[in-house]
């Protein structure tokens, strides 16, 4: 825990600065009510009504997020292997290459099915 404590010290200093400056900003500025000012900015036209919670958006983002999870888990497996690379030797290499090939199958599948195309 001694190792982690300094991180919390730095985080506390940063958080204090952020909170104080945001409070100062909200106090120091003028307050002039204006109905149009409170509307969402859309280059001057009437703002589009937004459904609560953001509404729907294109499924591409979900596909990207799913592929990200696959690769993030791959990275999580790669790190311990990389750190103990010399001890694991040939066995570790073969195991990892097999694992990489497995992940690459999913990757190649998504690529061929157009999951990586953004138009």
């Amino acid at each position, binding site marked *: 825990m*001694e*190792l982690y404590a300094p991180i919390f010290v730095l985080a506390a200093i940063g958080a204090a600065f952020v*909170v104080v400056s945001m409070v100062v900003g909200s106090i120091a*500025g003028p307050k002039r009510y204006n109905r149009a000012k409170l509307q*969402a900015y859309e280059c001057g036209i009437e703002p589009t009504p937004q459904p609560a919670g953001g509404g729907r958006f294109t499924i591409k983002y979900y596909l990207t997020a799913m592929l990200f999870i696959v690769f993030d888990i791959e990275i999580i497996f790669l790190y311990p292997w990389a750190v103990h690379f010399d001890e694991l030797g040939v066995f570790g290499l073969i195991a990892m290459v097999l694992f990489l090939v497995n992940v690459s199958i999913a990757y190649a599948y998504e690529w061929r099915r157009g999951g990586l195309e*953004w138009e």
Partner: protein
Amino acid sequence: MTLAQGAEPGLGAFGTDPWWITLIKALVIFVFLMVCVLMMIMADRKVMGRMQQRHGPNRFGPLGLLQSLADGVKLSLKEDVIPRGVDRVVYIAAPMIAAVPAFIAFSVIPVGPEVTMFGVQTPLQLTDLPIAALVVLATAAIGVYGIVLGGWASQSPYALLGGLRASAQVISYEIAMGLSFVAVFMYSGTLTTSGIVEAQRPLWFAVILLPSFLIYLVTMIGETNRLPFDLAEGEGEIVGGFMTEYGSMKFTMFFLAEYVNMVTVAAVSVTFFLGGWLAPPPITSFWAGANEGYWPILWWLVKFLAVMFLFIWVRGSLPRIRYDQLMQLGWKILIPVQLVWITAVAVVRILLNEGAPIGAVAAVVAGFALVVVAAVYGFARSARRRRAAEAAERQEELRLMRDDPAYGGFPVPPQNAPHYGSSVPAEGPRSGARVPHDKREEVTGA
């Protein structure tokens, strides 16, 4: 002594500082980050100005050095507008979520060896962990939440689009970034940042692992949403992106987070690839004390500033790329290249470790080189074919447009369209057999 220290050798120097040394170091890091951000914003504008044949800010303070400080004060005196309809809690929390984690990552960056500070023997590094490299990645990932939540809570289409783009972009580039560290860990054998710097004493990893370093440089620009990858706030398309609805100090916090993140990723590149605080090789050959005492801070700063300058240089040189190009670069180029590169490094290192004959190693290297050349050739071929197809399509479109002004474009009523009260007789659809222009019957309507 904690379990972690027992498990990981080389961390004995950490976690033993008295509380006031920790506080001093944390404050120094905080002040350094703030000064760095102020100077970086100013340098950004001044260097960009010089690259564009103009002066940049030069009014406030000597040489305009205090310009960003003045900007900050002015921003804090602006009205703190919270638009109607926003999700207030998330809207206010988002800038904090973006800014606070940005500070954390710097705590594991080593800027020097052990020195005597006020009579206490302590390393020039706030702390080090057995998983220090993961802290860097984790804080970089948490920062995205601020952007996504800020865009989502604003209840504005531009902000939502900016937030979504930023999240997709950052997670895409995070994979390539994480993969570029794998080769580094293979060579260092540790995740502690001080251990990684020590491992570079014979030779910097930027030299041994050049492809990893180059890909890291690309991903660090993508990760911090800087030009040419600043699609999340592309002014030409989505106004201000996720921060469209933010003003006053909340906007400043997003801005601060962006620049602190730049400082952090630059510091990480120095630590992981450019030898951290180690003096550049020629210096140590004639000056043995170059890596002692407080001097390493100088070497660290020089490398750090060089990487920071790269940020501005890239921004001044390259135009913003399209969103599909951005995702294509991340998913179709950087990631496969990294996977092949990691495999190549692993195979070659295993062969060297096992004492394989040099001919076998050379054969393996040649094999990987062949794969790379084939892949590049295939990619270039497919790109050329696609470009040719696009050109043909465009030619066809131009031809159709010449024949029919209303083709595919804005629905302008064609001048020969049938309508009420006209003496012009209706013409048949143009798609059938075309009548050559000169053979067409002239209809004047007179």
